[in-house]
């Protein structure tokens, strides 16, 4: 038989972006420890619906840790307490019977809360639109092998490319900085030959966009690296800094 636990949830409820919002307490009873965190919220929502109350709004899509849509801060930890785990992949067996959990959305000036735990991560897309791309057709999969890339470099680029754009780094950062996200995005293109021609423009434009959108300034607290569900390393931030300095001081790009 599966084990079940009872939890007390203090969930952030906010009707609209304008609403002030508040915490509401719910009792989650007989939660199977085999459930994921989102499934636990589903159970609460079913009960709320049956009671004629408004279910808790939260984002999700793949529920297998690859899309970056889910996310909430659980007792001060973005995506909950497990290392390299998204909220959808976090299982209830990591909690104890009787636990009290505060569940909040990502908090950052750049991320507006749309409703309850749903926040608007469009700013991350806007940073991508500012330069997180390659302008020419880089070909299909087999074309990747037409330019030789050392295996080690390819691995570093792939590590950076693992970023799913969930924004947990911003949520975890005491300064609400997006440097880990931008570091990952700039790195994965800057490391590969296909990304080099536009590297200078990309670094400058993405950083400027990031600053304009109201994210904070990185102060190397390294909380992002510790919370990132994909284990993105802060060496990517150092690489971003190098790319930015190279672009700013040595490239013709203004």
């Amino acid at each position, binding site marked *: 038989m599966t084990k079940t636990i009872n939890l007390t949830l203090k969930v952030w409820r906010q009707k609209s972006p304008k609403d002030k919002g508040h915490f509401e307490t719910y009792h989650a009873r007989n939660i199977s420890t085999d459930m994921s965190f989102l499934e636990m919220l589903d159970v609460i929502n079913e009960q709320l619906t049956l009671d004629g109350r408004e279910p808790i709004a939260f984002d999700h899509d793949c529920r297998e840790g690859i899309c970056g849509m889910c996310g909430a*801060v659980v007792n001060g*930890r973005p995506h909950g307490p497990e290392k390299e785990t998204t909220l959808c992949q976090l299982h209830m067996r990591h909690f104890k019977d009787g636990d009290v959990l505060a569940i909040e959305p990502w908090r950052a000036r750049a991320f507006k809360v749309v409703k309850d735990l749903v926040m608007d991560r469009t700013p991350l897309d806007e940073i991508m639109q500012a330069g997180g791309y390659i302008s020419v057709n880089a070909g299909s999969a087999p074309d990747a092998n037409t330019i030789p890339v050392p295996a080690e470099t390819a691995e570093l680029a792939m590590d950076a490319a693992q970023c799913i754009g969930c924004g947990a780094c911003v949520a*975890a950062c005491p300064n609400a900085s997006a440097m880990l996200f931008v570091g990952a995005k700039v790195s994965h293109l800057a490391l590969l030959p296909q990304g080099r021609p536009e590297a200078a423009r990309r670094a400058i434009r993405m950083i*400027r966009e990031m600053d304009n959108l109201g994210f904070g*300034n990185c102060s190397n*607290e*390294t909380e992002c690296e510790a919370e990132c569900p994909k284990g993105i390393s802060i060496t990517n931030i150092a690489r971003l800094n190098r790319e930015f300095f190279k672009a700013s001081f040595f490239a013709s790009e203004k």
Partner: protein
Amino acid sequence: MNWLTKTLGSSIGKKLMMAVTGLSFCGFLAVHLAGNLTIYGGKDAFNSYAEHLHSLGPLITAAEIVLLVFALVHVLTGLTLFYQNLAARPVRYRINRSAGGRTIGSGTMPYTGIFLLIFVVLHLMNFHFVDKTDTTIYNLVSAAFSRPLLVVFYIVAMVVAAIHVSHGLWSAFQTMGASHPKYTPFIKALSTVFAILVGIGFGFLPIYISIIA
């Protein structure tokens, strides 16, 4: 705005200014500490060190101007970052918990920084901007540290400086893009060692002087 102000005004640019000025202060601390160690050589050694230093004349004035400009840049940029970073999260979390990234140093940078600013001003008023015509620096120092309150204040300030430097030194390297699997562990260790040296090296001086005075 031209490219330079745009670069330095960006988030990474501001951090670059913090890193360059901060690293210079680390260099200054090392030299200052080495000089202060002459105190252990006794009264004459310390006084002659001070005299030699002042005989450098314009060189010293130039260094002082550079330090002053760097201090202004470091303080003003630091305060700007502090304010901007607070503003970047208008609604705070109900529960704040670290995942293990933060250190005492990194989590307190603005506060230790402001404390150090106050300390530096007082320190300069104690020993720099004073009339030294009919006294020596050694007499000034031993008179100052015969006051227990001042000894305690200086020790606290040096512990705070150690905490500030423990994050500042490696952080400056990371900001300048110097991160490498081979050297980063060394840089991090160096930060800790340097912080301890600053804390103990400077912190022990007031104790020593108050004992022999």
